[in-house]
């Protein structure tokens, strides 16, 4: 599965990519929303795992940009901050609902989520 991991903390993005690649995925780390969208256009990922609170473009804007381009792409948001709930509520009001996982995520659970989402159990639905 082609996956893009977005986090403004390089150590998080890098370790996640390392873990995902070890499980046979083809993952790529980027540090902000804009380059995530740019890379998504090129590699056309099956899934994007993105942090929510980031400078410039937040994870929800990033997700919306990617879904617009790749409607079938699975989005997994993860966040360590309560502030992301207000961003989510805003997105929901605009018609996009996403599920957010809390940092820290157990990598096994993330892998499980990716597997199930590819089977349609976890969905991101632009409404």
């Amino acid at each position: 599965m082609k996956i893009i991991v977005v986090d403004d903390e390089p150590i998080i993005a890098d370790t996640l990519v390392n873990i995902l690649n070890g499980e046979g995925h083809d993952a790529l780390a980027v540090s902000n929303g804009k380059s995530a969208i740019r890379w998504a256009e090129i590699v056309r990922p099956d899934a994007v795992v993105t942090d929510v609170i980031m400078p410039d473009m937040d994870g929800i804007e990033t997700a919306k940009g990617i879904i617009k381009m790749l409607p079938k792409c699975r989005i997994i948001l993860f966040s360590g901050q309560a502030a992301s709930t207000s961003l989510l509520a805003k997105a929901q009001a605009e018609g996009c609902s996403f599920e957010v996982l809390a940092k820290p995520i157990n990598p096994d659970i993330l892998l499980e989520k990716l597997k199930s989402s590819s089977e349609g159990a976890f969905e991101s639905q632009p409404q």
Partner: protein
Amino acid sequence: MKFFAPEINHPITVRGTEILPDDTPQQYLQKLARITLDEMGQFVGILTADGILLECNRAALESGGLTRDDVIGKPFWETFWWTVTPMMQEEIRKAIYRAALGEHVRYDVEIFVKKSSKETTVMDFTLDPVKDENGQIVFLLLEGRDITEKKAQEREIARQSQELARPGKTKAQPTDIDEFRTSLKSRPKPPEQAERLLAAIVESSDDAIASKDLNGIVTSWNKSAERLLGYSAEEMIGQPITLIIPPELHPDETMILGKIRRGERIDHFETVRVRKNGEKIEVSLTISPVRDKNGIIIGAAKIIRDITESKKIERALRTTEKLAAAGRLAATVAHEINNPLEAVTNLVYLAKRDLSDGKKVGNYLQLASRELDRVSHIARQTLGFYRENSQPTTVNITQILNDLLFLYETRLQARKIKVVKQYDKPMEVTALAGEIRQAFSNLITNAIDAMPAGGTLLVRATESHAWSNSCQPGIRITILDTGSGIKPQHRNHLFQPFFTTKADVGTGLGLWITRTIIVKHHGQIRVKSRSGPQIHGTAFSIFLPLHTDVLKPESEETDTPNAISTGVVNA
């Protein structure tokens, strides 16, 4: 009948009464009486015992624009003067009846005086029975004196008294009362009546009002004071005011009496008083000197307001504010801790996966340990190593700055913030290391937060002298960012606890804590900020003296903003 008749050579006419040279003494006296009556300013007339007006003087007629024909021979109560209201007519009729029974009747009444404009005048009116030689009442003499002006003065006094009694004015300001008294004295009104009026106002006030002499002996005590403090006026008057002051606050009374003696006023002094039943109440006192008529201070008047309820509300509000801050603190902690934990979780997962590759595992563990340092630092910082209790030691300021910049390295890199360090050699001061680290940590994280889209963070440390005392050597540290700057409207609140512009993640405690720490070290903190479109950014400068002898970590009062009020702020 004895009379004096001047020699009259030619006729004398006064208002239609003509005295002729050949008048008989009888005629002369009659005419003189007529002139006397007509020249009187008072309203004078005579009625039959039944109340028919027989005669009245010119003043009575002329003022009303009336003629004799309008009134003479009519029942007095039906004359124009009394037609203000039917009730007044009824009243004068009764008065006539009483006078006819031999009573001296006197009352103040507002009657018509001008037929044209229906103007009224207040009259002090009397009716007296006139008896014949047999003691039979045959006539009634009426007299009326115009007291309109006197009445107006009385109303003015009443108005001023009401003003004094109004809630906003009940502070018994001595100036008001003095003015009031002066104004009373200048009027014909007997002053005792006004004094009584004042006393009544004080007595019925909803505020507890008391007075005392310069020895603190209570001289008056109103009803509200009785209610508020539980002592009756009889119990309090003549007793020292210290009866209602808790023993530990007795020195306050000395201070209060001192101020009163100097003629000073005490406004809204918040303190505690004791009720008769021993219950303590929070009160606000306003105390003013009382002067005698020569201006000599003879005592004090005080208003005691129960503020127990409002204090309770204030405390509840502060608690709410603290809870809100705790909520924001939790958000900050979540932000600062969850990211390193995410990294550590991943690194541990990788170490387990690559267990056979010792080199890889070593690398993961090193990274993990660095992340754990971040977490523990943040936990200490946000969860209270601020209240560290240790002895001052030699602290290397440049080492602390280096550590902090290392700690925030990932955040600085993520935001593409360029770091410029302007210090080379180690610089040491005697201080509480943890607190100094905390103070700078707050400034550096603020600087990072101010530059979400990158910029430059300049950290400078130089040997310097205190701004206020060039003889005191120390170190000056500057932390400058090229962020958006502090908005002018926020600059005055920067160091207040719970003030934050970062509603989601800020506690509003950072700068307040920093300043508390710096002031505790007898240092100084200054801030300069520009928020223009071209030039923008914020620079915090801190001066720390090389040696601080009077550090008292035990007695720190971190809850009181007053404890830090000596800092220098140029916001």
